[in-house]
């Protein structure tokens, strides 16, 4: 057995050397031009930078050299590899090698490497030229767009199918998902929209006071919260909470072959996993949006009284007069669209997972980023649409 590899710790690393008895570093000496004497531990920890030193040793004329291993304290595969690389250099220069003084167990290791059929160089990764990388990335992006459209189509078909056969809808799963994505999100959605209402009122207060238009704070808060902020902040929170959860769940199920198992059992993953999630968000997100509306306006109301001296009664009177119901409806109408985006993107990215844990993380990130991106794009499109329709 190799002697004492327990005495670990690199001599160059003083912090570690302090903790252990140091390994005698491997060394090579040349007492005679044709004789090499090896010393110390020829092990992974003892070699350090000896391989570079060995590569620099000149072997020029064809001659017989003697390699004496009697004073090698320990030898492992790393040491053998480094030594063999040197010996091969001698061989290819036309020289021959005689090994003397080696212990039996060390000879066994040396033979092992010498017996190797062909010393093949490690296979290297082929670096891709920049243009090829660009092309591949573009094609991959395009493919993903088509795959997403494909998935949207499949989901729509499944949705149509479940409308045609309502008995096949899995209500229990839907209720469970509503609880997860909707009910459990109430605290965080409520808190954030409340704070948002406070911020909007606070920012507007200074300007309004300057014009003596304090009461218009109700217009400001009502208009901005109901129409834009409440739907958007709710969608973003749900994308972060539930979109990511959907992608991670389906992704992990793909990795552990649960999805394949479902398919072989004749259960469509789309019916069991995707549709309930879409239904659940279609129901939960509009409700969450209304809840966010209420708390956002409430936050603004508190700030209006504190900063502008507008009482609750005044504020609510003004709110009812100034904000038409259509403003409220325009905000709530957006929510189902956002819901569909979040659920579909989350599930789609989950299904794209392949390989291991790494891939699950990557697809989850993509699900959230793409969902938020698409939600904001959809919001912008709504703004354009509403201004054309003159709402």
């Amino acid at each position: 057995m190799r002697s004492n590899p327990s005495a670990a710790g690199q001599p160059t690393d003083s912090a570690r050397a302090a903790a252990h008895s140091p390994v005698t570093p491997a060394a090579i000496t040349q007492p005679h031009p044709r004789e090499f004497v090896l010393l110390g531990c020829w092990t992974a920890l003892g070699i350090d930078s000896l391989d570079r030193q060995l590569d620099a040793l000149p072997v020029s004329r064809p001659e017989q050299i003697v390699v004496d291993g009697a004073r090698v304290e320990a030898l492992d595969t790393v040491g053998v590899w480094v030594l063999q690389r040197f010996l091969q250099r001698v061989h290819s220069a036309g020289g021959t090698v005689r090994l003397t003084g080696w212990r039996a167990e060390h000879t066994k290791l040396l033979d092992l490497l010498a017996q190797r059929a062909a010393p093949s160089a490690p296979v290297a990764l082929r670096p891709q030229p920049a243009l090829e990388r660009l092309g591949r990335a573009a094609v991959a992006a395009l493919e993903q767009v088509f795959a997403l459209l494909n998935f949207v189509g499949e989901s729509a078909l499944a949705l149509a199918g479940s409308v045609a056969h309502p008995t096949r809808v899995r209500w229990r799963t839907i209720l469970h998902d509503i609880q997860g994505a909707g009910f459990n999100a109430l605290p965080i959605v409520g808190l954030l929209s409340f704070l948002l209402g406070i911020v909007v009122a606070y920012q507007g207060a200074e300007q309004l006071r300057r014009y003596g238009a304090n009461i218009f704070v109700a217009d400001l808060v009502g208009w901005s919260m109901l129409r834009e902020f409440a739907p958007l902040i709710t969608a973003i929170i749900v994308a972060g909470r539930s979109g990511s959860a959907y992608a991670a769940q389906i992704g992990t199920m793909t990795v552990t072959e649960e999805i394949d198992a479902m398919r072989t059992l004749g259960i469509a993953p789309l019916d069991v996993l995707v549709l309930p999630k879409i239904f659940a968000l279609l129901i939960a997100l509009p409700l969450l949006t209304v809840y966010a509306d209420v708390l956002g306006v409430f936050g603004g109301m508190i700030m209006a009284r504190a900063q502008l001296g507008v009482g609750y009664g005044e504020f609510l009177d003004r709110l009812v007069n100034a904000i038409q119901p259509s403003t409220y409806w325009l905000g709530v109408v957006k929510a189902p669209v956002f819901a569909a985006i979040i659920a579909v993107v989350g599930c789609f990215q989950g299904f794209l997972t392949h390989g291991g844990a790494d891939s699950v993380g990557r697809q989850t990130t993509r699900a959230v980023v793409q969902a938020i991106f698409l939600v904001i794009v959809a919001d912008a499109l709504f703004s354009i649409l509403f201004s054309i329709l003159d709402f």
Partner: protein
Amino acid sequence: MQADAQNGQRNGAPVIQIRNLSTRFGAHVVHSDLNLEVHRAEIFALVGGSGSGKSTLLREMILLHRPDAGTIRILGAELAALNEDAVRELRRRWGVMFQHGGLFGSLNVRENVGLPLREHTQLGDALIDEIAAWKLELTGLAPETGIQYPAELSGGMLKRASLARALALDPELLFLDEPTAGLDPASAAGVDKLVKKLRDLFGLTIVMITHDLDLLWQVADRVAVLGAGTVQGIGSMDELAQMDQPLIRQFFDGPRGRAAHAQQQEQTQERSWKQK
């Protein structure tokens, strides 16, 4: 094989020494007063029904789980008394092959094998890649496998790659968790040979959990049967076959146990015929 094990005994202190070990999960007793010794350069197998505490024992030996009572000494170090540096040093002296490979999905196979060398030594990157490629070759994998990712490998290749990683730092002690589970018979036979070859080449002490009767008959020097929280019997397979504790008999008397035993005896006879 026998001679080797006896040699080991003569070589002095056992590599692993477990004394009065007890483990509990809540009210469930896994080990009670378990004693075990593993000698140098032997291939030692742990067997037992599911829930007999094999995996827990392995996890306790590799410092992933702390026993409730008792002592475990490995390579001369008392596990419970180690400080952080000593733990790191000890971990460098053993290699572990996990049942499902435990390869890192974000690294390719060659990087996985080279990782311990990169972490614990100061060798150059090119040298580490060469050595990792050699380790893969030693475990019977093609060089092209090195640049594949674990997700692209078959079960047998995963086990081999995992073994190559366990061997990266030339450990003195190797733990194998179900080295042949889920492999086809040809690959499993390959693993049998590989385990033996590693012991003969590097003088490794190998501790494995296995249910593979072929592996037990062909490769293991000594086998410990765990059951009811303690070691029911310990010895070579031939010795165990003579014992008559019910938990050991269970193991030998099933149709599979008989078949493997019969096959073993046939081979022994053939060998003795050839010698004549």
